């Protein structure tokens, strides 16, 4: 990607390689992924199960399951430091302080046996203040900011007493409590109903505008990507297949996988009961990835050249793709 204003880049991931040691040997879940996250903007990472999008997020946060998951290469540059090599004590200060996290299932992100207020104050006590009363007050304020009615009452309640949407608001409040520079949200609305999803996405966008946050949004939902992201990375089997501004990705997708994804989703304005376009076959397991382009066994445009791995090539401004044949593909 080109760098319009390098000082806008808050988080820069360079050639990240993350592996898992399993009974079947060492598997590479993320294989040379690079991207930049800019102030006030939302970067979407989209892909199907096993593409490495969540492992990328966990790598940035250094929350990989131990001891199986390890960062084997690359750098994660944030505020002048490389998170990939930071000692745990320093990481604690950054996690929840300068970088916030929002996970898919709010029930697992919250402690079920502690009142909301205690969990929320803890964030302030860890990063901001020594005074419990002050932490409680700021926690209440944060709940109000994320649109929870009667926050003074809610502070005393337990997670199970809240609905799914309210719980996700609490998780967002915790993630934003210390005014982080970056928020990493892994499928933040996937477990929610559409009308609640709309509320949460609206809330996240408003808070982002107010606080100038950079957001990394990981999702499988192309609709959510289109409506909330400025830039997009399409991942496939641990690598970046295509990256660029959201309009370029949706209007002029260059990679056959991106095209396949966009063509295969049913659309409200489509013809009912017509045959949907499909991507044949399925995602290869990490154990039997093909050499060369990882999409080749499902790609309708495959040629002999695809046996060698394609590098990312510039397609347009800030838009790049890893396909040998992107120039030759028929227009969509």
């Amino acid at each position, binding site marked *: 990607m080109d760098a319009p204003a390098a000082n806008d880049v808050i988080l820069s991931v360079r050639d990240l390689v993350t592996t898992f040691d399993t009974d079947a040997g060492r598997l590479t879940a993320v294989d040379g992924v690079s991207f930049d996250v800019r102030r006030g903007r939302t970067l979407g990472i989209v892909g199907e199960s096993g593409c490495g999008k969540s492992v990328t997020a966990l790598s940035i946060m250094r929350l990989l399951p131990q001891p199986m998951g390890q960062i084997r290469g690359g750098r994660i540059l944030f505020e002048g430091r490389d998170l990939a090599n930071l000692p745990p004590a320093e990481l604690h200060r950054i996690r929840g302080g300068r970088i916030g996290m929002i996970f898919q299932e709010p029930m697992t992100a919250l402690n079920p046996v502690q009142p909301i207020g205690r969990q929320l104050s803890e964030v302030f006590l860890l990063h901001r203040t020594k005074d419990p009363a002050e932490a409680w007050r700021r926690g209440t304020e944060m709940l109000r900011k994320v649109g929870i009615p009667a926050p003074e009452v809610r502070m005393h309640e337990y997670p199970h007493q809240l609905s799914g949407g309210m719980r996700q608001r609490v998780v967002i409040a915790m993630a934003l409590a210390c005014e982080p520079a970056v928020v990493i949200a892994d499928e933040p609305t996937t477990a929610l109903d559409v009308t609640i999803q*709309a509320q949460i996405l609206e809330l996240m966008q408003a808070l982002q505008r107010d606080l100038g946050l950079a957001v990394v949004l990981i999702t499988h939902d192309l609709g959510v990507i289109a409506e909330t992201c400025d830039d997009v990375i399409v991942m496939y089997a641990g690598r970046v297949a295509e990256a660029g501004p959201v309009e370029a990705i949706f209007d002029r997708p260059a990679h056959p996988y991106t095209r396949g994804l966009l063509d295969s989703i049913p659309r409200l304005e489509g013809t009912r009961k017509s045959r*949907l376009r*499909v991507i044949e076959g*399925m*995602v290869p397991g990490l154990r039997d990835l093909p050499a060369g382009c990882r999409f080749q066994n499902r790609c309708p445009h495959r040629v002999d050249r695809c046996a060698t791995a394609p590098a990312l090539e510039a397609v347009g401004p800030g838009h790049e793709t890893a396909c040998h044949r992107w120039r030759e593909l028929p227009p969509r």
Partner: protein
Amino acid sequence: MDTPAAPTPPLLQLDDVQMHFPVREGLFLRSTRSCRAVDGVSLQLRAGETLGLVGESGCGKSTLGKCIVRLHQPTAGRILFEGTDLAALGQAALKPWRRHLQMVFQDPVESLNARHTVGEIVAEPFVIHGEGDARERRERVLGLLDKVGLPAAAADRYPFEFSGGQRQRIGIARALALRPRLLVCDEPVSALDVSIQSQVLNLLLELQRELGLSYLFIAHNLAVVKHVSDRIAIMYLGRIVELAPADALYAAPRHPYTRALLSAIPRPDPRGTRERIVLQGDVPSPINPPSGCPFHPRCPHATDRCRVEAPALRPAPGHPDHTVSCHLDL
């Protein structure tokens, strides 16, 4: 769809179906209140038709599906299948009917017995209903696997050896074993990846054309539902709030909930300019549903009448096949 007033009776007709679950609480776990999961649903499903059933979690759509295949015994109401009231039948009398109504579940992992081979899983309906000998069953299993796009070798393997999409094909093969007339598909593709979803949706559409199946297609994704359905019913807090031909429902939704639901779906179009109607609050509990119209606490148009009087499902003026339950003519 092209023959609106078909003289033949509907394949399936629900009359005021209710499913209330007792809520046991207090010191002696006495049942004091009930959860009105399905609260008076009436609808018809025609032969060869797909009726989409849409709603958010807890609206009762899965419970309704389970009542139809009689995994639940409904508390009240009639479930007429080709004129016979299944809700009134006991287990023994029901058995010959069960073959006509089968169900496809959301989670293909949980709905398949991990200790049985795929061949045994798909053959189980034959065993239960005493059809064929071992050789015949094997032959029919292979035929079914072929129909859903799986190789014959799959019969001797176990569910865990297959991907999510393939497991859903196994679930569909089992559901088809007894040549049912109606398949109740409960979120059949929501656990699948995008590129696999379209494969399974295409399979369901092909099977319907080939076998003349009827589907009750339960899902929360309106784009998916609209793609496969002829008509769509929108459910909220145990009741149908709107039922219309799929294109009409999308082009001219009449219930405020349907409108909000449609507008809340994120569209895969970064230049989208539509106005999003963001509903306030959460879905109320079916244990203590609101008075009057169940949607009134979240409805941006609610009036005093909506708070006290529950609207009935009525045809919209000039549109006999578009029914809506709303006091306001929006």
